[in-house]
């Protein structure tokens, strides 16, 4: 009984959770969302660039995209975050006078996200049937317009679930920013929970932070499943039997 009680106090101490709640809500949650959204957005833009480079007809561009992707997907996130966050700190300070590593955290997360999102976009774009590009070119569109208007929109649509998954990863990975040291007002969910846990010697604040993460990620997971089903099943009308084209004769003479 004692052990159970002790475990209960360690993980689910209501008072400790309540005590950390204001910080989680006003500091941790906004920062986690800012980190994930900002790096998700930048990662999407650079990822698209990488994807287009990756399917480009220029060998140099393809190669550059390949090397970038291999490096940033191949290294542990925390290594990149430390190298960028600590390594570029002095440069940022010289350029802007700011000592906050926060933007560098966003940069590091964005660079990692770009590599993954680039691969997601590339696989989506390459999965579009060759006939789509051919039909668009046959109408008189240039390669560039064909990609922009016809091929890429279809490719992106197919990988929406993978993109949302990537965003879920970013929400979780944003906790690694903890390693580059942030001031109190810049702390994200994990750091807020972890600080409170260290101060009180009780793990309940971390559980509270965990619940916040789940509130963000679980709905997104279900969103992924929903999009996935929609994309696979589609909202289709019942196809009608092909009525003989009544107007065929009239039309051709008009």
């Amino acid at each position, binding site marked *: 009984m004692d052990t159970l009680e002790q475990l209960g106090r360690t993980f689910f101490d209501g008072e400790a959770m309540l005590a950390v709640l204001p910080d989680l809500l006003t500091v941790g949650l906004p920062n986690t969302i800012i980190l994930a959204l900002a790096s998700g957005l930048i990662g999407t833009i650079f990822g698209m660039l990488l994807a287009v480079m990756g399917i480009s007809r220029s060998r140099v561009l393809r190669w550059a995209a390949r090397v970038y992707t291999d490096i940033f997907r191949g290294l542990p996130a925390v290594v990149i975050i430390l190298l960028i966050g600590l390594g570029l700190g002095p440069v940022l300070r010289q350029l802007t006078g700011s000592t906050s590593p926060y933007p560098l955290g966003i940069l590091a997360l964005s660079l990692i996200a770009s590599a993954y999102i680039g691969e997601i976009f590339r696989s989506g774009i390459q999965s579009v049937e060759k006939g789509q590009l051919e039909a668009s070119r*046959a109408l008189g*569109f240039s390669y560039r317009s064909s990609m922009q208007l016809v091929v890429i929109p279809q490719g992106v649509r197919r990988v929406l679930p993978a993109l949302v998954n990537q965003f879920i990863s970013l929400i979780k990975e944003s906790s690694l920013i903890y390693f580059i040291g942030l001031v109190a007002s810049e702390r994200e969910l994990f750091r807020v929970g972890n600080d409170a846990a260290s101060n009180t010697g009780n793990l309940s604040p971390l559980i509270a932070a965990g619940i916040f993460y789940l509130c963000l990620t679980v709905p997104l997971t279900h969103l992924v499943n929903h999009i996935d089903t929609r994309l696979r099943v589609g909202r289709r009308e019942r196809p009608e039997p092909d009525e003989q084209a009544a107007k*065929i004769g009239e039309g051709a003479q008009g």
Partner: protein
Amino acid sequence: MKAIDSGTLTGRNLHLSFGSNHVLRGIDLHVERGTTASVIGPSGSGKSTLLRVLNRLIEPDQGDILLDGRSVLKDNPDELRRRIGMVFQQFNLFPHKTVVDNVSLALRKLRRMSADEARAKALAQLDLVGLKHKADVRPGNLSGGQQQRVAIARALAMDPEVMFFDEATSALDPELVKGVLALMADLATAGMTMVVVTHEMGFSRNVSDTVTFMDGGVVVESGPPAAIFDDARTPRLRSFLSDVL
């Protein structure tokens, strides 16, 4: 349909290789304005490739392409393709756009028409193929025959001088073939210049003005339908005809 005052198409000594595979070995094809040329032959004979070379989706290694007597090899290929409509075996409609947007896309982006103008023209074009009432659905909700008629409307919307059909009915269920062939026959009657790669020997014999038989990347025989179907000179054509008829 707009009065067609151009469209004579000539391919001269066209060669194309993919690596060591010599797909076209000196093809000559002449299609007089307002006539329909059908191209027949066994699979892999280079028919579909020939169409793609004639509108420069694939650049020939050698030879010349003339539209109205003028070489178009130095033109911007995108501009050339705006003058030549093409219909594919697999329709290749844009699945993420509605039927009317499929037809109006090139009008808006390439002809620089306003959205309203392009939509009106697209609807008129869809009316011609009997599918105006499907304007706002996605192609995925249409039968194969309907999709192919939309694809024809999409190509016609650009007022092409020549239309290419690449086995346009090969992917259709048998009961849907007739409607598409009837539409193609109407176009031919209306004076469209057409190059039709087909396995439909009935269409080739009854609708086209000239028939070209290709095998192994060369033109084996070419002439009016009667000469090809009733009076084949070469053993290769005779054996092909006995296989398909």
